[in-house]
């Protein structure tokens, strides 16, 4: 007997979803044999001619079960008590499945256009906007850069970034504490991608939530400013763990802040041993040459991998 509705057919119970498909014209001959009275809630949709004799003249290929809720007593056909057993549905799907799929779409879209995509994450005030602005200036003619910037409100960052002459799209998230792949997908449509080969995405300043959301980037860049304390990577391991690059920013302030360089580097190594580390100051330009070389190298590798550019 089918485990799902007790219909008498063998029924299929595939590993993933406990549902089966009926052949058109298949009839449900329910044999009910207990005397309880109860109400009867069918979740499936009935055609106009349906009656409670449980013969289904309509063909149905949808997953279908005859589960009943037996909360109230007002019901006159007998039931096989076995039909109402609890069922387990195996789901095994990522909660952010939808975001992950949209992120893959963004990734494919950008790869097809030869865009290298970086997702910048950090706490608020660690210098993302200033670093991105100075990067764009430094990269100049070698890399044609576009920027997508996310904040809860205002377009202040977009205005600061437009000073560079690069195309900029501001996403205002309202109350949402992170960017997601759908927002980035929409922003990509607003950005003139002609001739661009580098896209910098400035995420909402937040060291927790953005870590969970793939935007379709090629690399994650996590900033740690010297003003934040050397133990930030130990306090927020998930986001640093996900970093491809850790940028130590504002090193021009290191002495004033009593920044302990060795401890900071050791903490980064401990949490993100594979990440590339750059020590930079957007203000003095220190470290930006190495950063620029790194991006050019990444872009060359990207081109080498792309069969269309050969």
């Amino acid at each position: 007997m089918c485990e799902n509705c007790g219909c008498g057919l063998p029924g299929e119970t595939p590993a993933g979803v406990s549902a089966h498909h009926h052949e058109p014209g298949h009839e449900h001959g329910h044999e009910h044999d207990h005397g309880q009275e109860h109400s009867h809630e069918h979740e499936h949709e009935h055609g106009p001619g349906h009656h409670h004799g449980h013969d289904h003249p309509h063909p149905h290929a949808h997953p279908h079960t005859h589960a009943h809720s037996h909360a109230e007593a007002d019901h006159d056909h007998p039931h096989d008590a076995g039909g109402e057993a609890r069922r387990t549905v195996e789901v095994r799907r990522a909660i952010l499945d939808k975001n992950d799929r949209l992120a893959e779409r963004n990734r494919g879209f950008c790869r097809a256009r030869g865009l290298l995509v970086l997702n910048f994450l950090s706490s608020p005030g660690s210098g993302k906007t200033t670093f991105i602005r100075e990067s764009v200036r430094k990269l100049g003619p070698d890399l044609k850069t576009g920027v997508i910037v996310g904040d809860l409100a205002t377009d202040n960052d977009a205005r600061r970034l437009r000073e560079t002459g690069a195309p900029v799209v501001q996403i205002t998230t309202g109350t949402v504490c992170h960017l997601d792949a759908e927002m980035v997908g929409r922003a990509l449509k607003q950005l003139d991608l002609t001739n661009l080969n580098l896209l910098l995405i400035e995420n909402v300043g937040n060291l927790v939530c953005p870590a969970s959301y793939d935007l379709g980037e090629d690399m994650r860049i996590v900033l740690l400013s010297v003003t934040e304390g050397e133990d930030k990577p130990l306090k927020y391991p998930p986001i640093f763990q996900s970093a491809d690059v850790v940028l130590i920013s504002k090193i021009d302030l290191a002495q004033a802040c009593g920044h302990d360089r060795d401890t900071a580097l050791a903490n980064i190594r401990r949490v993100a041993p594979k990440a590339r580390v750059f020590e930079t100051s957007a203000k003095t330009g220190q470290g930006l040459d190495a950063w620029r070389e790194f991006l050019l190298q990444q872009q060359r590798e990207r081109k080498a991998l792309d069969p269309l550019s050969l």
Partner: protein
Amino acid sequence: MHELSIMQSALSLALDQARQARAVRVHTIRLRIGALSGVAPDALEFAFEALTPGTMAEGAELAIERVPARFWCAACTREFQSDDLFAECPDCHSPSGELRAGREMEVASLEID
């Protein structure tokens, strides 16, 4: 706030699956949450209580399985579990960047009728 939006996604995925299976009630939703997912089970519970009233999952149990972080040490060719989230091989003490498990956030299964 983060857990609320994660729970919203989880619940909508679970309710979709329940509807597809023609459920009338959801009794249990089982999640697998990795130690490095950045999501706190307590906050998920709170969000679940807030989001389920009026849905098929009203009054349902939220069962959260924590998945510990597991790393791979290339030098010792072994996998090791790390409870304090730092990836240091217990044998050779070198750090590992090879995360094998611990980022999971998934809806594992449902109990329905």
